[in-house]
């Protein structure tokens, strides 16, 4: 009996992938923010850095949908209230423990990895020193949080999620967090044991307050609703008081509308990560192309999950095309705005990227002209020889074989400066490189006068630092963008989403069970995630080499733009033309789909959506 009640406990069944995913994603964001701050050279309290893994699952446990202690059905069974309350306590301990272990385990792994790096960040190393304390004190204060949560009106089968409850829960998390911050630096097991003992006593005292039978509600009554006239009810609303139709559709088809508040920052984050700005903040501006799988995952999730609850809207005189637009257009606009913001920042934020051109003297281990690999060019043959102004031929070496692209593709630097090059040749190549990297070229003469010098042994060396301060010296200079990247990203994400959506819509026929649809949804998400993770697995397995493939995508985008009639705009048109049949197919399938109402279950599979 108890086993069955445990299996179908209302809180236990809420432990869905989305809560775990949200916990992990929030932690990654927290970690990302701190890493960014550290990378920018700011100081961060390492204790605060480590605490993220406690705060996030604590907040989710406190305000998540875990307030149900027993179902109405359970109350009718000959099972004591104390037993049901203990069952709820066990469920919360299980759910909370799982989330806490996942979160703190992930955080521990990340901190230890950073601390063990060849060039560790001091804050990470210091944070690693706090990990033992974090685990001991974290678990102890977790027990206090648990005791506080289950002690709220313990005679009730479910505590109402009203404002009072919400404030209480947030205050509890903050109080427990404050306790953890204040006492958590005390070494040894005594302090956490004392805190845990308080939690255990509190739980025991609460258990003694639990009556023999839990109640559905307490005796409180709410105030009567304000009476209004029918004229007031029937008056047309002014436009500013109307909810936009797309918002009504999205909220009505969402099981947990508040999830949009959580999902929106991730959508923005994913879009930003596809620009050249956000990855550049961590020194990997060419990595954006490898987040297309996760982008497709987000778009698919947002557009596919509302289909489960579309039936109530289906009788409205609203075309299926308009409904389909409600699922795609707002999120795509939102992502597009975030993407445009990222590109704007990339273009105007002159501090976001480092100076791209470097010239090392001959005695340096990386002698010669250096530049970010995504400005390299691609060839399937021997790189073409270059004729210098003095008529000599320069043969650039094929620097990098791109593993993962067919046809023996090689990345090479067309601005190669052989050892022993004279200052004219170096300045000429620097001028050409600057023309490729910036929106305007810096003349060779300026390089000669301002940035280069000839040593006594006749070799060319930088006049100051090897990193040439071109952006600093030329405020008008902007780093060139890659206009072919965005349309190619849209193409790949668009095709991935269209493929998934078309297949998934096939499950919306009345003879297909709701369970099958939810499994299909889960499998779809898994496949998108597999696309994302698969790239890195292939990299580790040596099938592809992301380090060379990533910059190659930039060069490839430039090549495609040069081939496309009309340049980047022509490429956009081509992408739209390629995606158009898929769009028509999605529309057709969406029009034909049958959205019969389904009974909402709460099994693990059911809560996937």
């Amino acid at each position, binding site marked *: 009996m108890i086993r069955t009640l445990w299996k179908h406990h209302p809180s236990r069944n809420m432990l869905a992938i989305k809560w775990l995913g949200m916990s992990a994603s929030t932690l990654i964001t927290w970690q990302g923010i701190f890493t960014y701050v550290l990378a920018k050279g700011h100081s961060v309290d390492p204790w605060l850095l480590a605490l993220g893994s406690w705060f996030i699952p604590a907040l989710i446990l406190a305000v998540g949908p875990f307030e149900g202690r027993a179902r109405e059905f359970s109350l009718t069974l000959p099972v004591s209230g104390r037993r049901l309350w203990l069952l709820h306590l066990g469920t919360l301990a299980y759910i909370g423990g799982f989330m806490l272990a996942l979160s703190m385990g992930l955080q521990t792994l990340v901190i230890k990895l950073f601390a063990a790096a060849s060039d560790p960040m001091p804050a990470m190393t210091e944070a690693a020193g706090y990990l033992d304390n974090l685990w001991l004190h974290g678990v102890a204060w977790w027990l206090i949080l648990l005791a506080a949560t289950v002690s709220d009106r313990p005679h009730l089968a479910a505590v109402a999620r009203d404002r009072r409850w919400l404030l209480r829960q947030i205050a509890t998390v903050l109080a427990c967090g404050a306790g953890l911050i204040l006492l958590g630096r005390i070494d040894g097991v005594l302090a956490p044991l004392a805190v845990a003992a308080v939690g255990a006593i509190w739980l025991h005292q609460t258990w003694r307050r639990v009556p023999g039978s839990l109640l559905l509600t307490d005796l409180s009554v709410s105030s009567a*609703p*304000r*009476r*209004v*006239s*029918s*004229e*007031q*009810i*029937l*008056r*047309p*609303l002014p436009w500013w008081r*109307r*909810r936009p*139709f797309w918002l*009504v559709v999205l*909220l*009505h088809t969402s099981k947990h*509308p508040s999830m949009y508040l959580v999902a929106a920052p991730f959508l923005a984050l994913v879009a930003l990560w596809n620009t050249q700005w956000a990855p550049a903040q961590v020194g990997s501006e060419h990595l954006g192309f490898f987040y297309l799988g996760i982008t497709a995952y987000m778009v698919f999730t947002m557009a596919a999950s509302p289909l489960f609850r579309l*039936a*109530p809207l*289906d*009788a*409205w*005189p*609203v*075309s*299926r095309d308009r409904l389909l637009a409600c699922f795609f257009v707002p999120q795509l606009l939102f992502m597009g705005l975030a993407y445009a913001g990222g590109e704007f920042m990339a273009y105007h934020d002159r501090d976001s990227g480092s100076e791209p051109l470097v010239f090392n003297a001959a005695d340096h281990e990386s002698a010669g002209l250096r530049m970010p690999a995504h400005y390299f060019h691609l060839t399937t043959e021997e790189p073409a020889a270059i004729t210098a102004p003095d008529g000599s031929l320069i043969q650039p070496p094929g620097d990098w074989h791109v593993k993962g692209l067919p046809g023996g593709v090689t990345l090479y630097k067309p601005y190669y400066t052989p050892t022993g090059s004279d200052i004219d040749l170096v300045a000429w190549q620097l001028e050409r490189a600057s023309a490729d990297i910036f929106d305007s070229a810096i003349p060779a003469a300026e390089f000669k006068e301002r940035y280069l010098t000839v040593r006594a042994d006749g070799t060319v060396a930088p006049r100051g630092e090897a990193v040439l301060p071109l952006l600093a010296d030329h405020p008008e200079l902007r780093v060139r963008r890659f206009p072919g990247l965005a349309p190619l990203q849209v193409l790949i994400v668009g095709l991935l989403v269209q493929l998934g959506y078309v297949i998934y819509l096939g499950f919306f026929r*009345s*003879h297909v069970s709701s369970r099958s649809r939810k499994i299909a949804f889960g499998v779809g998400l898994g496949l998108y995630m597999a696309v994302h993770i698969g790239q890195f697995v292939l990299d580790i397995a040596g099938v592809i080499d992301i380090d060379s493939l990533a910059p190659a995508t930039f060069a490839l985008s430039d090549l495609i733009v040069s081939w496309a009639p009309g340049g980047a705009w022509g490429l956009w048109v081509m992408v739209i033309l390629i995606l158009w049949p898929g769009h028509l197919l999605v529309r057709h399938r969406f029009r*034909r789909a*049958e*959205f*019969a*109402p389904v009974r909402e279950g709460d099994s693990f599979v059911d809560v996937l959506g």
Partner: protein
Amino acid sequence: MNVLELRGVTRAYEKGVNVLDNVDLTVAQGEVIGLLGRNGAGKTTLLRIAMGLLEPQGGSVSVLGLDPRQQPLDVKRQVGYVSEDQTLPSFLSVTEAIDLHRRLYPGWDDALAHELSSRFQMKSDQKLKNLSKGQARQVSLLCAVCHRPPLLLLDEPAGGLDPAMRREFLETAIQMLGESGTTILFSSHHMTDVERLASRLVMIHDGQKWIDSDLDDVREGYCLVMIPADSAPDSAAILSHPRCLTVRRRDDAVRAVFELEPDEALRVATGELGLTDARSMPLNLEDMFIELVGGGRS
């Protein structure tokens, strides 16, 4: 022109199990039709097909001369639809829900909305999620009918409501609109509702239309013939009579429903079928429903 026409409509959710099997139904303007049938008989599927929410695997559907799958918007603008599953967005207030529907339906009639809101005594502008089931259903009905649809489809619209609320709801929906010429097709498990409100009865069982008749004809044209079990050893012989709809054995008697008046049925039983000790009696709707769905099909 018929308001609704279903010709040979077939629909299955599992292979070999037709929820609707070659069903024909024609509804003329102004008719009020009660749709009866057991759970799973196919009533909801029929109404959803008429609304264009489901596609039939066979046959054709015409609503006001339109194909609901080809011209879904034109159909939905002219049809009012209320079902137990057709919930309004719970986060909207009553005012917001009505305002939304006013924008969705071009022919919205504010006068009718006022009449209905007065009749339902709507006195608070709460969120729909805070309304009682009956109040929420009233708002649904108001939203579904205030564009004065020529056709109103009601799928168990009063399910779960208490008798007083059910009567108020149905009388408002069906009598008030039916009197103004709206064609209404409503499904219900409550025979009394059908008897009180419908002018025509359609009964569906096992995916097929068993009865499609004016209510008066149903009351007068069907009867129950009871034969002591020992006088009627062969149920199949009784069932083979073309006017016999069902036969079932219950306790010590064989009960057969005939599509005949009681006197005529008794003559058939004693004469053509040679059954002794048979007696016939008229059927009320509820008894007829139970006898029909509990027996075998002729």
